[in-house]
């Protein structure tokens, strides 16, 4: 009996040793292929794509930057005006990030450190943000913003993003804050620090990595968001974010696909750069607590 068991273990180990590199390769190819395709198509003239759709690789001599020129030049100059859209996206995302942190840092501190009535119930409030479909929130917000004349304003959109990201932000920060020993704060209190002073001068510097990860995370959510941008900003092209612009133009046939691929690259690149620069910070922040689940 013992012999067959060893055999099975050996055979399986051998099969897995062959299978594992294969699985890793397949995983890598399937995840990266679309991005590589995006990049390569973005530097090709449209005629080439239409003539030979199966050609994946083109020699660098056949590459062109005219697609990027067209997508970035302003509409008035015959381009697609993505520079303007990039600015819009940047304004909304940066504003949402800063404001979310301003709201969520004190919030996370309160939830992790201070005993107050309703502290335990707060989680249900946050859960409701996820349980209800955003399309459900979209209807009344659509109505409300129409009434207030806030549709077509970046400020209104920013406000929605804050509400969407504050709960995650508080959750992530709270996890980190709970790892900071309370004795530090007690020492600060003995030194005569007030509560706010302690938060700003003691806790924040210690929580800097978590705050940073959080900021990047919120930025990425706001930069990638589509539904609310579509509902609130669609009427005026000058207000579009990059995501919205790309979605609107890709539905039609006026703009060539390779130019839009250049638009996709412009939309994706900031996210990829941020992600690879801060990958460890981000993944650790996201899965904090998963070990205990």
């Amino acid at each position, binding site marked *: 009996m013992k012999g067959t068991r060893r055999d099975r273990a050996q055979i399986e180990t051998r099969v897995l040793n062959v299978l594992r590199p294969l699985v890793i390769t397949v995983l890598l190819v399937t995840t990266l292929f679309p991005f590589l395709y995006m990049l390569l198509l973005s530097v090709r003239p449209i005629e080439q794509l239409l003539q030979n759709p199966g050609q994946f690789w083109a020699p660098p001599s056949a590459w062109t930057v005219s697609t990027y020129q067209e997508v970035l030049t302003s509409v008035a100059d015959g381009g697609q005006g993505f520079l303007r859209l990039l600015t819009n996206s940047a304004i909304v995302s940066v504003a949402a990030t800063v404001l979310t942190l301003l709201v969520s840092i004190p919030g996370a501190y309160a939830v992790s450190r201070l005993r107050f009535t309703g502290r335990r119930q707060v989680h249900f409030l946050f859960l409701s943000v996820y349980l209800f479909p955003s399309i459900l929130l979209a209807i*009344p917000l659509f109505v409300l913003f129409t009434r207030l004349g806030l549709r077509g304003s970046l400020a209104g959109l920013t406000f929605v993003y804050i509400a969407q990201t504050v709960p995650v932000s508080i959750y992530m920060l709270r996890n980190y804050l709970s790892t900071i020993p309370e004795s530090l704060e007690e020492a600060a209190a003995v030194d005569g620090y007030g509560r706010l002073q302690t938060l700003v001068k003691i806790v924040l510097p210690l929580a800097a990595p978590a705050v940073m990860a959080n900021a990047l995370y919120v930025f990425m959510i706001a930069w990638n968001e589509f539904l609310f941008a579509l509902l609130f900003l669609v009427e005026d092209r000058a207000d579009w974010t990059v995501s919205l612009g790309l979605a609107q133009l890709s539905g039609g046939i006026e703009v060539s696909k390779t130019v839009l691929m250049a638009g996709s690259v412009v939309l994706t690149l900031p996210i990829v750069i941020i992600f690879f620069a801060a990958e460890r910070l981000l993944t650790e922040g996201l899965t904090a607590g998963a070990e205990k689940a």
Partner: protein
Amino acid sequence: MKQPRTLRQQENRAGLAYLSPTLVVVLVVVILPILWTIMLAFQRIRLINLRRAGVFGDYSLANIEVVLTSPGFWSSLWTTVVYTVGSTLGSITIGLIAALALRARFRARTLVRASVLLPYVAPVVAVTFVWTVLLSPQFGLLNDWGMRFLGWDRPIAFLSQREYALNVLGWHVDIPIALLTVIAFESWRYFPFAFLFLLARLQAVPQELEEAARVDGAAPTQVFRHILLPQLSAVIALLCVLRFIMTFNKFDDVYLLTGGGAGTEVVSVRVFEFLTARFDIGAAAAQALVLAAGLVVLLVIYLRFLAPRVEGEG
């Protein structure tokens, strides 16, 4: 005895004060809109007569009735369920395989692990656009390669065809090609989410357990079945719930890939159509409400009867 109580009161006040900005934002942009949706769902409101609508409008069940009896609603709800279950299982399965494959040390592991996360972090509009181009029957790479190397006799309209007639050994099967493609996309985009959580949990499994089993001659599949899987079951259950909720409510992916056509009309896309194409706010709200209610019912069923029982975990 007086001082501690005031300190306690102070702390209470400070806690609420620090949390108040959050509460205000969530109240204004989440709680009030939800309540308002419930009100809207029971009033006959279109964008034109919106000004007259108020808290004391005429309440009726007309919207709910219209929604429940309207053509396509039940099939759309069914599509949502199929789409959600398929994508949830797909993303968790791939995520699990990825986590197991990328667990042990090898060269460039960090880079590979990070690259695998790209579909999840990249902007949805960009990745859906690339997929639509890749799968396009006119200029898509996949169809070109399929015809050239796999012997397809004509291009397949992956995203705009409801059913694809497949002949397998004389058997004629209609497969819902667009829906399957959307599910494949969703599994591709969200497996990194499952991967992250499963990998984090795998790394917390004590090494001695596995080593002891190996010494005893356990095969890798046995180690997985009897040692790793029990350790992972709580995370997998959590992932099932999270992914189910998120996919059930999802709008962007389907809207951007197919626009809800070719048998992929999920409820959230339908709500959007009612809202923006017909300006029928009441019916849109009623449908969104039915969607939320459906989600709650399914979750209760899951938590009551199907969720693996985990003892002593919080």
